């Protein structure tokens, strides 16, 4: 039998938070803030659970002699080392900040650099996979924006700068607004389905 408690709690809390957002009634607003504070604490705990999950997955790889176990060892070693350092010195100490500035940021920056290459390659692949008008417009727009985003060896192509500004102000904004309106409708629909209990991403379905 379905447990009615989960949906009752989810629907009740959802309605109070929604009404507290729209109606500025003190009681509703205060209860809404209290629920959000509870949720923030739960999200923090969920983050810790996430770290434990990551740990278990990689520990299993190490103990099962997985081919990529050395990567998992590096990950676990890094995790434990960072936890110890930040736990001992505190998150704002210069040692902790050093780890962030000289290990975390360079690794993420190198992935960002890799991303640039991946995207150029994806553009070429897109032309091969879907050689249609929409793809040509997409790639053409990206090229125009890229060309005018930095100095072009002192070369000035007449009309290109104006074209870039026009693209940025008219079709890009119109397209973005259209997509955002669609997303907003989707968000309302998803939220209402949860409020009505038809979508239950928790407990028993």
């Amino acid at each position, binding site marked *: 039998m379905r447990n009615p408690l989960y949906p009752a709690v989810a629907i009740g809390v959802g309605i109070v938070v929604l009404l507290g957002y729209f109606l500025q009634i003190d009681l509703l607003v205060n209860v809404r803030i209290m629920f*959000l504070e509870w949720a923030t604490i739960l999200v923090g705990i969920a983050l810790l659970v996430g770290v434990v999950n990551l740990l278990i997955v990689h520990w299993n790889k190490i103990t099962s002699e997985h081919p990529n176990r050395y990567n998992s060892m590096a990950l676990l070693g890094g995790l434990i080392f960072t936890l110890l350092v930040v736990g001992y010195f505190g998150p704002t100490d210069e040692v902790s900040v050093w780890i962030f500035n000289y290990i975390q940021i360079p690794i993420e920056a190198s992935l960002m650099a890799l991303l640039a290459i991946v995207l150029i390659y994806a553009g070429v692949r897109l032309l091969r996979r879907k050689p249609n008008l929409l793809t040509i417009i997409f790639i053409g727009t990206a090229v125009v924006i890229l060309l005018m985003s930095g100095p072009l060896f002192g070369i000035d192509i007449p009309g290109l700068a104006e074209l870039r500004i026009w693209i940025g102000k008219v079709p890009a904004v119109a397209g973005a607004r259209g997509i955002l309106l669609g997303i907003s409708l*989707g968000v309302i629909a998803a939220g209402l389905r949860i409020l009505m209990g038809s979508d239950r991403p928790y407990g028993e379905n």
Partner: protein
Amino acid sequence: MNGLNLLGLFIVLVFFGLMIGVTILARRREVPKLREIPAFRRLDRAIGLAVEAGSRLHVSLGRGQMLSRQSAIGFVGLSILDRIGRSTSISDRPPIATSGEGTLGILSQDSQRVTAKYLGVESDPLRGRITGLTPFSYAAGTLSFIEEEEIGANLLIGSYGNEVALITDAVERKDGMTLGGTDNLTGQAVLFATAQEPLIGEESYAGGAYLGAGRMHNSSLYVQDILRWLLIGLILLGAILKLFGVL
């Protein structure tokens, strides 16, 4: 109480009323079929092929924060995970979900547990994995997972930025299939260029309806369409009035 808040509440109530109305109407008479979205037709085929080939399906839920607007797309991803779990019940390799946020990770494990209970099979909590907690660490963790597993199709339904290109590239290298939708504009542009089956705008929220998640999913999709046409009409009316100097 300001007018904008009341307008917001009014829109939500209209949406709610229309959803109920369309659901009641759908019980009494036949409603038109959902418009075709090629990505979902291809997903159906990919699910069948994955079951036949004994390969796994991967549902990537992104890294949407549960206390923000991004939670909606995360919930859609969870609905899809649930439907896919049931569709692949005869497969000996159930789907695996990856996420980049703690709450989403827990919910994905819970969703798989419920599906396993419904199917009467044993559930493995590690089928809901958290692969990283920052955008790039999530992408890096997910792409190593894609490299290691034998995956038939990848569904990327969640909140992503441009880092999603690293995931789609890893899929492409393994000749896999990617269906991707996100609520982030940059992520959408990247997915349009890199995913085999990109979902644009509200299409990302339609997954449940196309995978048979229930009547309310279909109703909400019809209401989304009705309100979208209404918005288009209002925008055009505003533009015409502005053109003639009325506004």
